[in-house]
């Protein structure tokens, strides 16, 4: 259960046996052709995989460097890569005879994916969500309810994702005998980081084959955004042993030199959160600090333990991108390619665009476009309105 020194299983004793059972069940499942067939059947016939790889031709031309390709996880059912894992874990729950599902969610993407598979499998579903996020993401709350899930507002702590995760774990501790906890990223106690990785590696496996078919070679760089880090791990898994540069991009929020960011690798220190040893944003006494990012999906104070390991070995390079930089990249992709990326994914785009400029035209970058930006339109609207207001103020001030 370790990635170098990272990972592990730091949980209340009550969960130790349930986690061992899940580990065993997953191991057996992954060797059972019938399980794998059902998993891939659902990915293909239900979620619409394989997702395509799109050349961002206009952006490539504009930047004048490396060719930019996008792995289109935004085209999945429910709009992001989250469904790959939710399908896999729901199948695992079914295999283990569990008919009740719990999940945590921040902006609601993993919650919607979990509510979706719970509906598909006829399972009862409870989604824990910080009260503050419930307020901010009413549409996703309603989507989950429409799918038949119960959304439980969490009032502890800062009432956001970290607290929702705490509460989901508490509920699971009390109900682990008949509930399966579908964790949404490569975080949590072992075996979750491994399970989620294995259910997300389809992204990279597909992308590698597709890219080779198009270009006849491997990409020069592969990039993805990281919050917990599931889309990045899923993308990188296929390339870890290849001669390909891997770059993951964290959320720098208002800047890594402020205290308003979510750049866990860049600025974090080692610690234990939600069951595993990894890098965290915390104070000197080990109290977890509240992260910040405009992107709800990257707004998490920890990171998957495998990322902590990949950072420490140097196999993957970790960079960070501010809110503002991500928004500029999002707008560029929208205007040039007609693709509205999730703000999460826009962090990877921003960094990739900078890399591309420095690279030669025979080189290439393959970016994981982890989700679509429809969910972010409210955020973008208020941001661009604020910006316009700000510009008006500046203009008013300078023309007087």
């Amino acid at each position, binding site marked *: 259960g370790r990635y170098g020194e990272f990972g*592990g*299983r*730091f*949980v*209340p*004793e*009550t*969960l*130790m*046996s*349930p986690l061992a059972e899940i580990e065993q069940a997953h191991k057996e499942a992954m060797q059972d052709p019938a399980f794998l067939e059902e998993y891939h059947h659902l990915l293909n016939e239900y979620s619409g995989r394989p997702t395509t790889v799109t050349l961002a031709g206009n952006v490539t031309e504009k930047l004048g460097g490396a060719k930019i390709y996008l792995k289109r996880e935004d085209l999945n059912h429910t709009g992001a890569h989250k469904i790959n894992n939710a399908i896999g874990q729901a199948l695992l729950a079914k295999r283990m005879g569990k008919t009740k599902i719990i999940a945590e969610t921040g902006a609601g993407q993993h919650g919607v994916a979990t509510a979706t598979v719970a509906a598909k499998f006829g399972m009862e579903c409870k989604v824990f969500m910080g009260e503050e996020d419930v307020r901010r993401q009413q549409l996703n709350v309603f989507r989950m309810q429409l799918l038949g899930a119960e959304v439980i507002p969490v009032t*502890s*702590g800062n009432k956001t994702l*970290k607290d929702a995760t*705490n509460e989901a*774990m*508490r509920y699971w*501790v*009390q*109900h*682990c*005998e008949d509930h399966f906890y579908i964790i949404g990223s490569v975080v949590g106690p072992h075996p979750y980081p491994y399970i989620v990785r294995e259910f997300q590696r389809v992204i990279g496996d597909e992308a590698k084959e597709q890219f080779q078919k198009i270009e006849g070679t491997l990409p020069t760089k592969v990039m993805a955004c990281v919050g917990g880090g599931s889309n990045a791990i899923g993308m990188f898994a296929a390339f870890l042993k290849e001669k390909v540069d891997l770059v993951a991009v964290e959320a720098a929020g208002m800047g890594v030199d402020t205290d308003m960011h979510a750049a866990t690798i860049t600025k974090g*220190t*080692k*610690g*234990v*959160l*939600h*069951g595993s*040893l990894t890098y*965290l944003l*915390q104070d*000197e*006494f*080990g*109290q*977890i*600090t509240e992260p910040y990012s405009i992107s709800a999906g990257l707004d998490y104070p920890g990171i998957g333990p495998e990322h902590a390991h990949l950072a420490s070995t140097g196999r993957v390079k970790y960079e960070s991108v501010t809110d503002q930089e991500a928004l500029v990249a999002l707008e560029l992709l929208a205007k040039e390619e007609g693709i509205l990326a999730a703000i999460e994914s826009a962090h990877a785009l921003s960094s990739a665009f900078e890399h591309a400029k420095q690279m030669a035209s025979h080189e290439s970058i393959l970016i994981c476009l982890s989700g679509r930006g429809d969910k972010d339109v409210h955020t973008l609207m208020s941001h661009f309105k604020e910006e316009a207001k700000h510009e008006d103020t500046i203009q008013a001030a300078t023309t007087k």
Partner: protein
Amino acid sequence: MKTLFKQPLQNKLFIPFITAGDPDGNATIDLAVALQEAGASAIELGIPYSDPVADGPVIQKASSRALKNGMNIVKAMKLVPEMRKKGVNIPIILFTYYNPVLQLEQESFFALLRENTIDGLLIPDIPFEESAELRQKCQEHSISFISLVAPTSSSRIKMIAENAEGFVYCVSSLGVTGVRKNFDNSITSFLDEVKQYSNVPVVVGFGVSSKEQVEELSSICDGVVVGSALVREIERLQTSLLNETTRNKAIDEFREFAKTFGSENESKEYV
């Protein structure tokens, strides 16, 4: 191996839990004194934590209150010598999540435990398999490393109970800390299995909230941990506890409340 309690036990153990710094450090000291007076066999001193996943809402709120007051793991440990000065001589067990411990150099953490006369260490989110090094260090420093065992532990019960020090902390039912009305009937067979392997007292916690429950459990274990019920009382008394003119009266009220859980025999000897 160090033992926290003199064996064989003369009375059932009453181990109260309070959060350090709730509602402030001075109150914590006085509350500890009151608990000893109410018959506590030992005190679990909880370190407030931002992400207490093993705790129910009552202790979560206590944690938040204490953190707002600036409490931290080092300050919390330094409360213990103050308690000793006021006559607390029962064992003090530091209850802390793993992460705050991890942020201290291991040597300085154990030095702090020793110099602050702390007797035991309980980390709810470190399972047996991850605790080898810490248990080793505890033995070196004569600190009892308390292990938890749960109804779901099944095949793990033997391993945990055989290696237990101080006491075995049995989780009463599935779950996190908090007040419960009823206990699962299966608790008897669970406790029997723990007792079969344990060389130290077998104590039940998580959800003990009334004298009746204490009595019900007394026949099948060596004692109880009472947490949320007491912390809820502290929450109720917080304003009085923070005000110097009303503190003593609040402490009196708290002591009376705590006595409903305590053993009738108030004089004990501690090792």
